[in-house]
């Protein structure tokens, strides 16, 4: 190394490409459970998935004014997300390059500058190193530009802030591709856009991040069967019993042509949405001026007012439920743990009482203490705990649900579409893309798989 060389240090790895390729068999629909447990695969994920995917950091309205910042993570790397004077957004590694101290230790706020508390190295709001104590006496040759914290590329999509470390990655627009069509069901219902209700709820679940990402990508099945029976019961009017509620069955599922994204939704039947969000939100979503405007903007009455409880994952770890409007990032914490960072979005021009109803209903249902999501936590923890077993890791999981039931030329819905909302086609897409990323040495190789 010459004295100004700050190029990356190559990290050791143990799995070879053919071994990784055997971990998921798309055509047979088989998942090797070791993808959820293996420490070396996890380290490779940090490098090949999290260090070069577009990751969700938050919502633009969480940092409205110049100097406003939030701190969050990209994989396990802490980052600072700061609104600049020109209204752009800077994202930099929350680590001082001197001895690795966390530069900013608050969750959010407004700053004119950041100063490392260890030796006083000071940064502007874009993360440029601008001042070093005793620089003239002690760091005669310091190239402050070279020794600024690593910066990430930042791009937004209709309010959501994404970042990516990789200079060679495709831009966010290309990365999302036709998945934008499905994101728009929540993000583009009005020209006013969305805003985040203040407050991010964070909690820890000892399970692999892929269980969570896959569920929001592809798993309406769990909601339409046993997982959330008590949650549904908790949302029914007092005079209705479980037997009075026929679970919806009509819907569709989307698998991205490339990129691992997926979404699924019921069409027409409001029963599950009523049980989750109550009559007021369901009415706002399906009838009246706001719903009509959404239908007009989305180019179809069905898309604007008849899609219910849509689940979606933007690969790898951005997940949300259009209609419920909870949005979250799954932050990986080793193969055996994930942090959920969740907030709620509303149409910026929605009436105050509708915004308030979204707030109350999402925290009542999809939160650590929510009547739906508390049961997800229970399931995922047990799954991960069992995977300590030798035999438990020695046979594949079944991922063959609704195989070969898709069309690639639906007249309305782009991508690979299943007319069966209960399918694992989108999950197969997620794992197929995971495999692509895990076996591609760089973005040029990845682009060649499109």
């Amino acid at each position: 190394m010459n004295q100004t060389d700050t190029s990356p240090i190559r990290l050791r790895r143990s799995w070879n490409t053919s071994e990784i390729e055997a971990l998921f068999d798309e055509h047979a629909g088989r998942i090797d459970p070791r993808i959820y447990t293996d420490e070396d695969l996890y380290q490779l994920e940090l490098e090949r998935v999290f260090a070069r995917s577009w990751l969700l950091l938050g919502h633009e309205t969480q940092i409205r004014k110049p100097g406003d910042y939030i701190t969050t993570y990209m994989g396990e790397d802490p980052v600072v997300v700061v609104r600049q004077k020109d209204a752009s957004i800077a994202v930099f590694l929350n680590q001082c390059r001197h001895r690795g101290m966390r530069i900013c230790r608050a969750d959010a706020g407004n700053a004119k500058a950041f100063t490392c508390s260890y030796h006083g190295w000071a940064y502007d709001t874009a993360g440029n190193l601008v001042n070093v104590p005793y620089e003239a006496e002690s760091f005669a040759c310091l190239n402050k530009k070279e020794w600024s914290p690593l910066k990430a590329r930042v791009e937004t999509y209709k309010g959501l802030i994404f970042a990516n470390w990789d200079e060679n990655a495709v831009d966010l627009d290309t990365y999302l591709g036709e998945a934008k069509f499905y994101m728009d069901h929540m993000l583009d219902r009005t020209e006013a856009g969305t805003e985040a209700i203040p407050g991010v709820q964070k909690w820890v679940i000892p399970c692999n991040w892929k269980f969570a990402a896959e569920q929001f990508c592809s798993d309406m099945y769990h909601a339409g069967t046993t997982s959330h029976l008590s949650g549904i019961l908790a949302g029914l009017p007092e005079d209705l019993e479980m037997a009075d509620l026929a679970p919806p069955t009509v819907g569709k599922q989307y698998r991205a042509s490339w990129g691992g994204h997926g979404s699924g939704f019921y069409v027409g039947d409001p029963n599950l949405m009523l049980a989750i969000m109550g009559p007021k939100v369901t009415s706002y979503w399906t009838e009246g001026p706001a719903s009509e405007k959404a239908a007009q903007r989305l180019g179809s009455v069905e898309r604007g007012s008849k899609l219910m409880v849509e689940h979606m994952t933007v690969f790898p770890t951005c997940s949300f439920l259009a209609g419920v409007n909870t949005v979250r990032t799954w932050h990986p914490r080793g193969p055996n743990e994930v942090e959920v960072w969740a907030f709620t979005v509303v149409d910026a021009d929605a009436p105050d009482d509708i915004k308030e109803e979204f707030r109350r209903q999402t925290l009542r249902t999809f939160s650590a203490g929510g009547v739906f999501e508390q049961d997800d936590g229970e399931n995922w923890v047990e799954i991960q705990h069992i995977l300590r077993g030798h035999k438990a890791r020695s046979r594949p999981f079944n991922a063959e649900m609704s195989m070969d039931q898709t069309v690639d030329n639906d007249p309305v819905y782009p991508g690979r579409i299943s007319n069966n909302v209960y399918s694992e086609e989108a999950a197969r897409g997620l794992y197929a893309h995971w495999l692509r990323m895990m076996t591609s040495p760089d973005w040029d190789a990845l682009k060649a798989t499109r």
Partner: protein
Amino acid sequence: MPSTDLTQAFEWPEKAVSLELQNSVEQFYYREAQLLDHQRYETWLTLLAEDIQYWMPIRTSHTSRNKALEYVRAGGNAHFDDTYESMRARIRGRVSGLNWTEDPPSRSRHIVSNVIVRETEDPDTVEVGSSFLCYRNRIERMTDIYVGERRDVLRRVSDGLGFKIAKRTILLDQSTITANNLSLFF
């Protein structure tokens, strides 16, 4: 009116309340804890006033200078922000036998201490600050400890356990929740 600033200490009265009142409030809390620790959720619900606000705000980390930003304000996202109706609905789900995160039920222990009572202008209403340590153990070895402070408004009633909870604000001493869920009531 006492301070509603949650970053400030509970505004205790200069002189402690009578032994009798102190004792009756403490005994009310111990009985409430028994109901929760033995899954008598429907009876516990009868302790809540119909106009209850049950609120557990999200807490965040800031330097002391920005202490005012610590709690996500009322009207923002929260861990709990419930009415009597939504609490009744939660309990309907809870006792259904289908609420997997509490079936099999957790073994919980609600420890209550540091009870400070403040009388108000309304002779039937008291404000109470107390500390809790809530232990949860479930299935084989999953163990969580929740610690914090409750700020309640209690209303005297002539029947039942002598009080109803008209308002409860729970200050959980965590920013990121270190448990996999918040399936208990506090």
